[in-house]
């Protein structure tokens, strides 16, 4: 997972602090549990916490465990998928009690539930994404790359499609059975981030080329590109209104400068959100179709920042 270490927007009028939650340890990643009003966080020691939004009240927590690398919460707020470095994924109920273990064979780098929770996409190191049926505990498909694995993935809002940004520089779109529907192969450099637009018709990508590119999800042709920036893009997220998106940039050569932009897709205009040394650890759409960004500070707090509709 390449979305790292970025600070955010303390004085931007467009983003406001929803809640700040004290955490026992620094949170490495946060996963919004759909519109259930919950958010799950993975701490540095592999423990998992679930909080209610917007109160920040602790709903459950799972004890520390070695080798935890990734976390996803099901959109209905009932299940956690916990990826591990030993090539397994633990499916646990929201209280943290394990229900089954999936053997995926390689270190798990990222996890994503489909919007209806019926599929789990598992991104592993240096190999293609695997699609699993979490209810049955069976693998549905292994996706395709020319070599290596994927850097980012996202389900369409209706759950019919999965888009992957792949290290072989291609962007691929699959159906629920893992059948390849479309490929965008004009990139020379790796895409690091991918996000469906809320209507499911377009896919936003960004990567080392420093350009936000919008693809038609039906055939992966380029719909438009936003102006090139000076630094590579490590994260993109479409805002629920379908008019805006957020891109996260890092000076990858020196790993020094972190920038977050909010774009107006209609005009191509952007506004830089200010930085205050926090770290982005998650993004999602929560109850009321509100876009929420999470940052984790070194003083062991998790802050939810909310975007206006």
């Amino acid at each position, binding site marked *: 997972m*390449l979305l790292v270490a970025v600070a955010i927007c303390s004085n931007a009028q467009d983003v406001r602090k929803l809640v700040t939650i004290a955490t026992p340890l620094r949170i490495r990643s946060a996963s919004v549990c759909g519109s259930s009003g919950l958010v799950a966080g993975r701490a540095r020691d592999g423990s998992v916490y679930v909080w209610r939004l917007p109160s920040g009240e602790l709903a459950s927590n799972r004890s520390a465990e070695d080798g935890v690398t990734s976390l996803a919460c099901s959109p209905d707020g009932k299940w956690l998928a916990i990826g591990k470095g030993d090539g397994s994924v633990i499916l646990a109920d929201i209280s943290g009690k394990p229900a089954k273990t999936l053997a995926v064979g390689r270190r798990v780098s990222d996890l994503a539930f489909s919007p209806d929770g019926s599929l789990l996409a598992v991104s592993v*190191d*240096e190999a293609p994404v695997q699609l699993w049926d979490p209810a049955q505990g069976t693998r549905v498909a292994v996706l395709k790359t*020319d*070599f*290596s694995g994927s*850097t980012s993935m996202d389900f369409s809002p209706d759950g019919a499609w999965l888009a992957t940004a792949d*290290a*072989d*520089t291609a962007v691929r779109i699959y159906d629920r059975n893992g059948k390849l529907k479309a490929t965008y192969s004009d*990139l*020379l*450099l*790796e895409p*690091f981030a991918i996000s469906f637009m809320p209507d499911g018709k377009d896919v936003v990508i960004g990567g*080392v*080329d420093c350009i936000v590119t919008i693809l038609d999800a039906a055939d992966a042709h380029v719909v438009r590109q936003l102006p090139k920036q000076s630094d*590579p893009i490590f994260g993109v997220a479409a805002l629920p209104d379908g008019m805006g998106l957020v891109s996260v940039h890092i000076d*990858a*050569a*020196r*790993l020094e400068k972190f920038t977050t932009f909010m774009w107006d897709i209609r005009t191509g205009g952007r506004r830089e959100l200010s930085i205050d040394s926090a770290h982005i650890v998650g993004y999602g759409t929560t109850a009321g179709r509100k876009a929420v960004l999470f940052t984790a500070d070194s003083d062991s707090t998790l802050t939810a920042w909310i975007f206006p509709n």
Partner: protein
Amino acid sequence: MLISRRDVLAKCMALGVVTSTANLLPSTLAEAWDHNEIIRQLTPPDQLGPFYKRRAPGSNALREAGDPGMPLVVTGQVFDTRGSVIPEATIEIWQTDHLGLYDVDGYRYRARLAANAEGKYDFSSVMPGHYPARVCQHIHYLVTARGHKPLITQLYFATDPVFDGDPDRNFKHGDSPSRELIRPVTLVGDPKDIHAAVQFELVMGVL
């Protein structure tokens, strides 16, 4: 018609050309023979890294006149695990400049090479610097050849300061996944025209 090793062994044993000191069946001997023919271990894989770029130029001269940094020449050969040469493999390499910076706008210190009919390849470059997010100096490799699994790996250098002169002892100070990928460096030439030379053999698995 292809004759299997098993058939050849059985025939040779029947003719007395091959004898076994133990009372072993030809099939057992054939399996042992096959096993022993895995004479080269696969090159350990390593991460692709975030700066791969397609359509790199075919020139094996990555270093241009006047480039700062220690000149470097890397040579090697591509094999399968039985030790057979894999001819004409495609070898894509990319690295930082001597300061540890990748060129993502152009193709400096990037190349797409073709091994020759004997599986041999070579390129001239400079010793890469230390990229800020990594511990070790390294050169990325993506090797492809028909009938073989793509090999993604990295070349590391025994002279890297992180190993403090003893990569056997200090291997874990670095971020190479395998000691095998840390190659000896030989200084070649005279003080006025010196360069570092490294040999890096590549062993691929079959599909």
